């Protein structure tokens, strides 16, 4: 089984191949691990590999997996369509980073913008966040207006090449 996981800015792949010897060959971005696994109560599992063992705790929250190993926590996100979403966000869409109210819109559709230029501001939990243009370009579509409440993760602005 192959699955893809968003890890910060990366999308990483994991291949699981059950082995005849009663183990898993697990390949993470080309790094191969030979693992046995015992499922414990409550999302915990014991992973072992030639004499070492580690307790991992995985909590599923939607597409996210909160993983605890030792005293460290990692948050991964299941990528249903492989690297598709990575490509999309690498594209022209700017998403709202959190739910909140759009307090200011500094640009209009068709405007040419430069890298770092403020496009709009969102206020949530008493803080104002300015969304800036990640690169030079032109505003293809503006999907939010000042005063509007928006959810987290929705597209606010689409950019295109200014050419």
């Amino acid at each position, binding site marked *: 089984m192959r699955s893809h996981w968003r890890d910060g800015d990366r999308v990483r792949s994991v291949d699981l191949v059950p082995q005849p010897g009663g183990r898993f060959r697990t390949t993470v971005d080309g790094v191969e691990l030979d693992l046995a696994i015992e499922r414990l109560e409550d999302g915990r599992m014991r992973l072992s590999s030639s004499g070492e063992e580690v307790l*991992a705790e995985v909590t599923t929250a939607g597409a996210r997996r909160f993983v605890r190993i030792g005293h460290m926590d990692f948050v991964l996100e299941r990528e249903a369509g492989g690297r598709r979403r990575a490509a999309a966000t690498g594209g022209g869409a700017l998403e709202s980073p959190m739910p909140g109210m759009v307090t200011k819109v500094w640009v209009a559709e068709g405007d040419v913008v430069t890298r770092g230029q403020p496009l709009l501001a969102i206020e949530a939990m008493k803080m104002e966040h300015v969304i800036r243009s990640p690169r030079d370009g032109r505003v293809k579509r503006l999907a939010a207006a000042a005063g509007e409440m928006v959810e987290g993760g929705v597209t606010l602005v689409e950019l295109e090449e200014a050419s």
Partner: protein
Amino acid sequence: MFDKVLIANRGEIACRIACTLRELGVRTVAVCSNVDRGARHTRLADKVCLLGAAEPQASYLNIEALLQAARASGAEAVHPGYGFLAENAEFAAAVEAAGLTFIGPTPEQIRALGDKRTARDIAQKAGVPVVPGATGADRAALRKAAQRLGYPVIVKAALGGGGKGMQVVEDASQLDEALDSTQRLALSGFGDPSLYLEKRLDRPRHVEVQVLGDGRGHAIHLFERECSLQRRHQKVLEECPSPTVTEGLRDRLTDAAVAIARELKYRGAGTVEFLLAGEDFWFLEMNTRLQVEHPVTEIVTGLDLVRLQLEVAASGRLPITQSDIVRRGHAIEVRIYAEDAARGFLPQAGTALRVRWPQGPFVRVDAGIEPGDAVPVHYDPILAKVVAAGGTRDQALARLTTALDQALVHGVMTNLPFLRALVRARPVAAAAADTEWIEREFLASFAAVAGAPAPELALAAAALLEWMGDGAPTGTVFPGPGAARAGSTDAFRAAGRWRLPGLE
């Protein structure tokens, strides 16, 4: 003492207040918005009143609904907590007009200290130096004042406080945009567009003194707290006592704070904030509420500040004298927020599916959530505070580090990775950080750690859980029993990389 008290707040502070009320045998009335039905603060209460919809204006900022809840529940007094209406003079006046006791200062005191302009006058009258600054409604006058003070300056909402509604302006070209945006926040956040300009001191430290007054001119202090570790003027780590304040400076600071409280005939608990540079200090503002960071004072003095608030409110007298207040050891607090520190500290919401707070010797946790509780988008994202005590600062910091390693919140992202790195940073251990150090230096070090890829085992664990499915019975061994215990593999050694390094 009161028979029944309404807590006009939510989250960890409502839980904290409920603990003391329960201990005193005072019946506790909780209030909640629609999304907070069944929240932890309601579970600690004897009675719960629904205020309205999730939006603060409809619920925790809804004075009419709060008064109705107080009347309906038969509460005799209202504790406002911090945030929401805690420093709203209109609310305090409305509570008193309804014949109830407001557990806090008088409406006049809240109003006077909530306005940076009158607050500065009071401090000066009490003989306490203030940070150079200027007020004015007129743009031209403000521009001239900024020039006179010299850049950088700070633009603040006159009625703001606690780091809310303020902006640093590096040079004259940014002043207008800063005045605009601060004015907008001042109006929406504090209902008054008045602004105030202040000289921005170079690498100041932030030290505050906890005071308690009886409302008739008697006031005492409970020593100081150091809160220099800030991000965007929001406190991140607080401690008592200050590691840098000398005994002589401590005396001058506490004398100044008590002088202000006496000058005002201050009632209840309050905090006088100062900026420090070397042995010099300037009055910054006075907060007329219980502070988020009050636990460090409680640990070092052994006193319960909420209980003291209640006793002053119920009796009009100070239940203790200055000589009863003795410091022992050191305490350090950090705030656990639902925010993604690796992505600009964006606030997070969701359900805290798995939560384990640290416990053990000399560790205190004030939490607003338990496993399964929701973290709504509508409110301040503070989830809990973790506080550690020790005979010395080093001991307290070591305990805090261990406690944060133990803490676990899954289901909603928190700033725990940030805090774990912070308490290991050398300037924190050396108590050498000023209020701008986190942004100036630490964030870059943290970004390097936060941006590192997760270890392969973490990805393997996530993928293996998916492979097994949720239905697999526990105790199942996939695919077979573990191997003999001998030797070691690179993958497991690799997990060792994920111990946090000591950051600069």
